[in-house]
């Protein structure tokens, strides 16, 4: 039977390029959110560690909200309600904002754990050499605690990279959204999702490998 409509067409090589571009967008939104979120998260972690009850009453509950509410709900709520307070952000910017806060909320607890991993006697020894509080944090706590929680941080980073797929609900054409578009046209979900999965794997795997090699180097 002759096809009566031409909306559907098979998977073509140029579609691979389309997916590749989308993968770059996934990478870009992930790099932005994870970097900014990590910096913020470390600051929040430090506040949680040093702030004691003041932090327990202020920062901690806010971070708990962002850690506990499903990311997809956060994205939809933020994207639709931010304009009410005059924030007209496009899907990409909204995605970055929410993914950043989400990363920060997860990293905060990792960072606090890292600071706690450096025993008080170690820090006293650093201070006894004349180091200031900040020098102790920068040269002793950051490298020692950072290494202790590095695997946990890699887990957060990889998680956020994969969760960035949810930004597709706002219409941002990253890897998952691009796949959905192609599936609609080609009707070949198995093939396209496999390719998209391979792209995600290609983004994550070098990070895991690099992290593992760093850990081996530190373990010596």
């Amino acid at each position: 039977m002759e096809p009566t409509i031409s909306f559907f067409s098979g998977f073509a090589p140029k579609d691979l390029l389309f997916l590749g571009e989308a993968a770059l967008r996934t990478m870009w939104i992930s790099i932005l959110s994870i970097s900014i979120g990590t910096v913020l998260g470390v600051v929040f972690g430090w506040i949680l560690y040093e702030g004691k009850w003041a932090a327990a009453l202020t920062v901690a509950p806010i971070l708990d909200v962002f850690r506990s509410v499903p990311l997809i709900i956060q994205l939809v709520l933020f994207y639709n309600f931010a304009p009410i307070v005059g924030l007209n952000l496009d899907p990409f910017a909204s995605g970055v904002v929410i993914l950043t806060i989400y990363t920060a909320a997860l990293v905060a607890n990792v960072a606090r754990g890292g600071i706690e991993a450096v025993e008080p006697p170690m820090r006293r020894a650093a201070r006894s050499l004349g180091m200031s509080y900040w020098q102790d944090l920068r040269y002793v706590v950051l490298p020692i605690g950072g290494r202790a929680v590095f695997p946990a941080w890699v887990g957060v980073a990889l998680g956020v990279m994969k969760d960035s797929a949810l930004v597709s609900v706002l219409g941002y054409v990253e890897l998952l959204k691009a796949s959905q578009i192609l599936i609609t046209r080609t009707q070949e979900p198995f093939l396209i999702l496999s390719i998209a999965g391979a792209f995600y794997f290609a983004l994550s795997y070098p990070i895991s490998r690099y992290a593992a090699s760093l850990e081996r180097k530190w373990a010596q």
Partner: protein
Amino acid sequence: MIEIHDLHKYFGSLHVLKGIDLNVEKGEVLSVIGASGSGKSTLLYCINGLEPVQQGNVVVDGTDVHAKGTDINKLRQQLGMVFQQWNSFPHLTALENVALAPKIVKGKSKAEAREIAAQQLKHVGLGDKLDVYPSALSGGQQQRLAIARALAMEPEYMLFDEATSALDPELVGEVLETMRMLAEEGMTMICVTHEMGFARDVSDRVAFFHQGVMEEIGPPEQIFGNPQSEHTQKFLANVR
């Protein structure tokens, strides 16, 4: 000179130091002995400002350690401290461990800091371990590394807080030997210790602490040969 006047220290409601008066002259080696919990380690922490005090004061070369406005980080450069746990920085080699504080605290150049570090590591007998990470060093070597790290700041005083207590018995000797060497070089030292042999042979004076009070102080011959206080006699009878 370190002058301690009517020093009181509380941990909560626990009265740990009950009015300590003590002067340590330049070049003197003072050993502080006494049972655990007698306040002798706390005394060291108060001397270099790691613990706040509630009454009295500690004056180091004319500077009140606990006064507002004292640059404690600068003052601590005069007061090297070695702890029971050696606390080597695990992410740095022996050389980097020792070079770190001269570089970031004193602002020495990298080359200069490394030279000082290499010199101090040789000084404590670790000249062949410069590029080794602490994890590959024995406890005794790590404690000597900690001594070198403190010495690299060129302090006027060295405070030893039970520097050999956490070591395996066969490693105690090398650390005591290093401390003995420093004493012979004329370093001013306050050593909180359980090593009675060291206290007797190396110290100019020995102080005995009991429940937050300095019960007795005097030359080692007096403290070990003819102790005056009943508590000192009892303590020494038990450790012998």
